[in-house]
């Protein structure tokens, strides 16, 4: 339109100002039943919080968790080798920091979140007891260094820019075997038997192994389930539904009992490997269903266009459908990782000592027998807090990625 339109004199929208009384009336006492709910809930909340706080202040069992922090974190991993879990963690954080510099966005948020948590743990670690014969860094120093490492490598990668991208992807792929090598030994490092591993170390290792190792298998199963070849499809459907129909403990139980029978000389396979195999086989079925959801969300036109351009089936899958499908299911995969992280606590049932197992052992230590009521409440509360911080942080990250994907669609 060419005609000049006189702009209306602009005026600010009236500001909505709500006083305290108004807010209370609107949010807590809007109707008679809301008023009743508010009062009753307020009474319960005040009661619960005050009794919980007063219990926390007077609870006698806190030393149980804090003097045994080493057992909770690494269980019986040799004290003179503790630098190795630290080195493994530093390696992963270094890669995370570098990735933050290269990719930015959510990855940077994750890295800075990890740095903030490291600083927090660093301060808390001042209260941890020193270990005899310790060749590793003290906990507080290590955590502060971790935070520095994250921020520093982020800055470094920003300078170096995009040319780090491919080396980093390769480094991430190699990081899993590297971490295992550092922890277990070999190539000159003394071997640390896996039966000595435990605590949070084992919990994280099982969850990460479950996701990392089940990833290729899960993707293959998802593709197989959508295949047009009936033999492959039926096999994949049977596998997925069979595993999803039974509880994880059954699969762990099978791993512990049947795996040694299936493979000649299998009695020598150690318990950790059996658990990892079971967790991987279990997780793959769920991962396959998640990836299938992503594959289904891709419009058919994408595949038709790729075929019309002359790409064959493999090229279409690898270059067109899978990348889009995987990007779409990242939040769901984080969700699956959280579930797996919590579910790995079931390995206590087959006799491994993860974070929960370590806590149960500490509760049973003879020196706490005299404590009235036992020390289980304090110890379990501490490990619940550890589990909670990890799961909650990851669920926030997943939410954030989800929002980002949703925004990029519009």
């Amino acid at each position: 339109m060419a005609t000049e339109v006189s702009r209306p004199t602009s005026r600010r929208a009236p500001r909505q100002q709500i006083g305290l009384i108004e807010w209370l009336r609107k949010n807590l006492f809007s109707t008679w039943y809301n008023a009743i709910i508010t009062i009753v809930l307020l009474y319960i909340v005040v009661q619960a919080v005050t009794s919980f706080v007063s219990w926390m202040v007077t609870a006698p069992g806190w030393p149980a968790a804090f003097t045994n922090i080493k057992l909770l974190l690494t269980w019986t991993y040799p004290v003179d080798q503790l630098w190795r879990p630290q080195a493994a963690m530093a390696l992963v954080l270094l890669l995370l920091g570098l990735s933050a510099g290269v990719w930015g966005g959510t990855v940077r948020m994750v890295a800075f979140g990890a740095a903030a948590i490291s600083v927090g743990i660093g301060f808390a670690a001042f209260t941890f007891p020193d270990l005899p014969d310790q060749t590793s860094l003290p906990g507080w120093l290590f955590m502060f260094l971790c935070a520095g490492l994250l921020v520093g490598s982020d800055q470094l990668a920003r300078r170096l820019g995009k040319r780090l991208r491919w080396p980093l992807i390769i480094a991430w792929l190699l990081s899993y075997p590297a971490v295992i090598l550092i922890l277990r030994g070999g190539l000159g490092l003394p071997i640390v038997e896996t039966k000595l591993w435990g605590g949070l170390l084992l919990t994280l290792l099982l969850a990460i192994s479950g996701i990392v190792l089940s990833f290729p298998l899960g993707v293959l199963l998802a593709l197989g389930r959508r295949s047009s070849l009936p033999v492959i499809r039926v096999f994949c459907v049977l596998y997925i539904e069979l595993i999803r129909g039974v509880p994880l403990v059954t699969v762990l139980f099978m791993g512990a009992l049947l795996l040694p029978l299936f493979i000649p000389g299998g009695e020598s396979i150690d318990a950790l490997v059996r658990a990892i195999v079971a967790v991987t086989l279990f997780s793959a079925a769920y991962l396959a269903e998640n990836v299938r959801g992503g594959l289904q969300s891709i419009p058919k036109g994408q595949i038709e266009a790729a075929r019309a351009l002359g790409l064959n089936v493999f090229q279409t899958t690898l270059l067109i459908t899978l990348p889009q499908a995987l990007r779409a299911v990242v939040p769901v995969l984080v969700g699956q990782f959280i579930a797996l992280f919590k579910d790995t606590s079931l390995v206590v049932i087959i006799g491994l000592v993860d974070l929960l197992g370590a806590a149960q052992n500490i509760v049973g230590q003879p020196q706490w027998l005299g404590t009235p009521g036992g020390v289980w409440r304090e110890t379990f509360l501490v490990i619940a807090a550890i589990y909670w911080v990890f799961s909650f942080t990851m669920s926030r990250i997943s939410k954030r990625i989800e929002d980002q994907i949703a925004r990029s669609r519009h």
Partner: protein
Amino acid sequence: MAVGSPSVPPGKINIPFYRDTRIIAIIVQVVFAILVIAVVWFLYSNMINGLRQANLLPTFSFLSVPAGFPISESVIEYDPSMTYGRAFVVGILNTVRVAVIGIILATLLGLILGIARLSDNWLLRNVALVYVEIVRNVPLLLQLIFWFSLTRLFPRIQESIDVGGLMFLHNRGITLAWPQASNAFGAWMLWVYAGIVIGIVFYVVRRIQFVRRDRPGVALPYALLIALAVALLGFLVTYLTTGVWPVSLSVPVLQRFNFEGGVTVTNSFAALLIGLVIYTAVFIGEIVRSGILAVSKGQREAARALGLTPGQTMRLVILPQALRVIIPPLTSQYLNLTKNSSLAIAIAYPDLFYVANTINNQTGQAVPVILMLMASYLSVSLLTSLFMNWYNRRIQLVER
């Protein structure tokens, strides 16, 4: 095929067999099948060889051998002189018991949570949020062990914690007041049957009326109400005529060493049930919440504009549409609860997994036990999903 020659008749083109997708498909499948069979055969023969050396060839004959171990609680009659087969059935029934009660309670609590999360009351909304965020980020097994340890802190039975005279907490479990049939129960049941018949007749008549007039309407709630009213009337009439209430509350009374009356559940069962319900309710609550949010605002506004009351809007417009979103994920939560009940082994509740584990330890028959275990879980899962899928199809039809 060149661009300039579109008229090459199909079938005339000579495709080498290794480029013919139909033949490739067959070859790939045959190779895949051979590979799978080879791997399975390899694993199977290793297993059989190993077991033969250990003189433990898989057999189901142990099922008819006396089990010889006690099971702390059972729905059906059981003692150690009964067979392993019987023990296994006891395990299945114990799993079904905790799963059914757990599913009902978790659904109720989840519904409350889901609605509370959407409440306009700030405090209620946030208390629900805190509950959700705490419970879902802590492993279920840890929660179960926590509840179990808590129930063991309860005092000896003689010093039970009395909750309103109807519930008693003690270190052997929880004793609850429970309804008990009296000798007038039979007379009352006649009224109940009459109520059901009248309700069905009313329902059928109303449906026919709706169809004749070609108008939508609800009949089921009123039919249920009528049946309930008849049953309640019968309850009163039976009392007035016989002088005895047909159902009375059996209140537990503390004797020297035990409670008389009421029902007592073991602390394993109580801890398992509490843990499963509290954990699963969180997920159900989130499903209910997202289901209600998924119904677009326009639907509610349109319903209100058409003159429907808020209650009618909820019942006739929001809920039917929300249910369609809610049912499929709800099914998988029900299955999760059932599968999660296998964690009972950590707190000594004799469920399916616990019993199967004991049988395996005693007989060494790992393979048959695992097969039976998996078959049982799979059939429970299958039955639940069949039922839920049937229900899902039913409510899907309401849409059209």
